[in-house]
């Protein structure tokens, strides 16, 4: 079965392009022949029922699957024309260019300041104290967290509330100035108010970074994204503008899922 791509989806400006990507965990095929263009100026949402492979596919985009010894990736993924699995691509550099925010907020057990400053420090982006200070402030402002934490930057990052921790993780990701930000169900552990703040933040960041978000909430996908891909059983079933996917799905499975028949 081939992915249905909506006809009125213009494919210019692809920041990342995956071509015929399959992912195996040992013998098990988790992702089957997925091809997709990730646009640079939009938010792309991956939706689908649990276990459909959307998170697995997301993790191939910055090679986080490398940490799982049994995982194997076939096909090609390019970032600005460079093959990210090619020998010329350094994985550390790739992850600095393609940042990631996880399902459960995972701040380092360090101060808020050190959480943000860690990335710039290891990459040598900030040499002096005032440069680091500037990056920390800029990142926290962009993540909408500055006003809440500016008086307690030296407190532990783990002492913040769940929603604040997740925004701290987003700030940590943007501190190294990435080109793409991957978000793996960033709101699934948060309450509705914190979720609303994160969604607002995604909206603000979308012009500056290419954002890919995995979500199991269709409402969230409809609210924050401009492109939506529907995954089912390891395959990408349908891909198009979010409005098209939600109002005018072509595949029956997509229609069943978004009308709540399963998932």
């Amino acid at each position: 079965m081939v992915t249905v791509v909506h006809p009125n989806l213009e494919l210019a400006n692809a920041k990342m392009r995956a071509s015929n990507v399959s992912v195996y965990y040992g013998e098990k095929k988790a992702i089957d022949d997925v091809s997709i263009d990730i646009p640079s100026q939009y938010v792309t949402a991956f939706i689908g029922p649990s276990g459909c492979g959307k998170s697995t596919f997301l993790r191939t985009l910055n090679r986080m699957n490398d940490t799982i010894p049994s995982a194997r990736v076939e096909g090609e993924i390019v970032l600005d024309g460079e093959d990210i699995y090619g020998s010329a691509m350094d994985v550390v550099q790739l992850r600095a260019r393609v940042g990631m925010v996880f399902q459960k907020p995972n701040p380092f057990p360090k101060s808020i300041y050190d959480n943000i400053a860690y990335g710039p420090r290891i990459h040598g982006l900030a040499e002096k104290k005032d440069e680091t200070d500037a990056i920390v402030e800029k990142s926290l402002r962009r993540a909408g967290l500055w006003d809440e934490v500016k008086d307690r930057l030296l407190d532990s990052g783990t002492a913040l509330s769940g929603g604040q921790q997740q925004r701290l993780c987003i700030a940590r990701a943007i501190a190294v100035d990435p080109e793409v930000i991957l978000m793996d169900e960033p709101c699934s552990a948060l309450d509705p108010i914190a979720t609303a703040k994160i969604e607002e933040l995604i909206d603000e960041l979308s012009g500056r970074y290419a954002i890919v978000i995995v979500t199991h909430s269709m409402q969230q996908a409809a609210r924050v994204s401009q492109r939506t891909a529907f995954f089912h059983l390891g395959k990408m079933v349908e891909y198009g503008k979010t409005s098209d996917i939600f109002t005018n799905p072509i595949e029956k499975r997509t229609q069943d899922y978004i009308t709540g028949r399963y998932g």
Partner: protein
Amino acid sequence: MSDQAINEGGAPTRTDAFKRRLKKRYASERRFRLAGLSAVLFSVAVLIFLLGNMTINGIGGFQRAELEVPIDFPSSGIAADAASMSSSGAIQALEMQGLPDIVQFYADQALGEEAAAELNDHAWREVARAIVADPEIIREKHDFSLSASAKLAAGLNGEGSQEMQALANRLSAEGKLAKNFDVGFLQRSDATDPQKVGIWGALKGSILTMVITLLMAFPIGVLAALYLEEYAPKNRWTEIIEVSINNLAAVPSIIFGLLGLAVFLWIFPNYRSAPLIGGMTLALMTMPVIVIAGRNAIKAVPPSIRDGALAVGASPVQVVFHHVLPLALPGILTGTIIGMARALGETAPLLMIGMRAFVATPPDGFTSPATVLPVQIFLWSDEIGRGFVERTSAAIIVLLVFLLVMNGLAIYLRNKFEKKW
């Protein structure tokens, strides 16, 4: 249908049978708690008995029998100027001036000849050391408390010959013989006379040995644990290594002594009885404990922290040293405490490599002959005589205090590094 069947007998959780079962459940919980509480009380009682017994016996070990001897320096003709007293031959110079005879003379005068004969034959050295420490004291009369002989000390404890007991009782009643706190016990080394023994030689030997053990076992153990957890591929070879390390932790300690004898003393034949060899032998024993504890601590670091660090572009080495190791350190230190405490109390392997030798001077360094606290305790416990029984208890107290200090330091470090996530 089925709903009806359940309702016919009334709600099953409201019957008397259910209440009886509930009572039984509570009773079994009470029994379990009682059993647990009595286990704790039993251990506490044993601990208190042990520590109490040691303290009561050991207090005597920190004391020694001393005779009161006033010495009138101006009329003795001893000369000691500050310059000559600061040289290394000062004690010999005093001996040449006849200090031993002078001490004996004043002892005869003060105590009578019978009692003065029971002055320890090294007593004059105590006077000499006092003069060296402060030459000014020879300008006037000075009272000394000098070590008594082992026989008189035994008499004071109600042991030994009748005459000696009678003499000790008479002198004690006259206030000329008393048991005083013996600072020298913490400064001297092993001797054949329980009045003259000290613990410093063994304590220093233990400290030096532990330093070697820590310096070897900690880095090797931590690096092995890190490699096995973070880098090693999961295959048959690493499994074999894992099983071997676990088995190593269970090997009886005397075997490690044999290994030390066969390997380390073969490589360094001149360092028999040295803390260097002892420390290396004990490091072999401690290392697997640190590896096992370290691996568990590293495993317990949440994967989300690793993911977070990798996702901002940290290299694997940076992930390990910036995140995994700091978070695992408290657990690693706990393993180190357990391993080091075991090494500190170990006697058997050290007997094999010659650390049971009679060493009358504290070791100068890692390569000079030494003994350690548990071996010293073992040696003294073999001696006959009441004096050594008390000294043995005192040595045990020193060992326990050393253990407490070492563990206290490690627990302090652990709490300092402990972080929550």
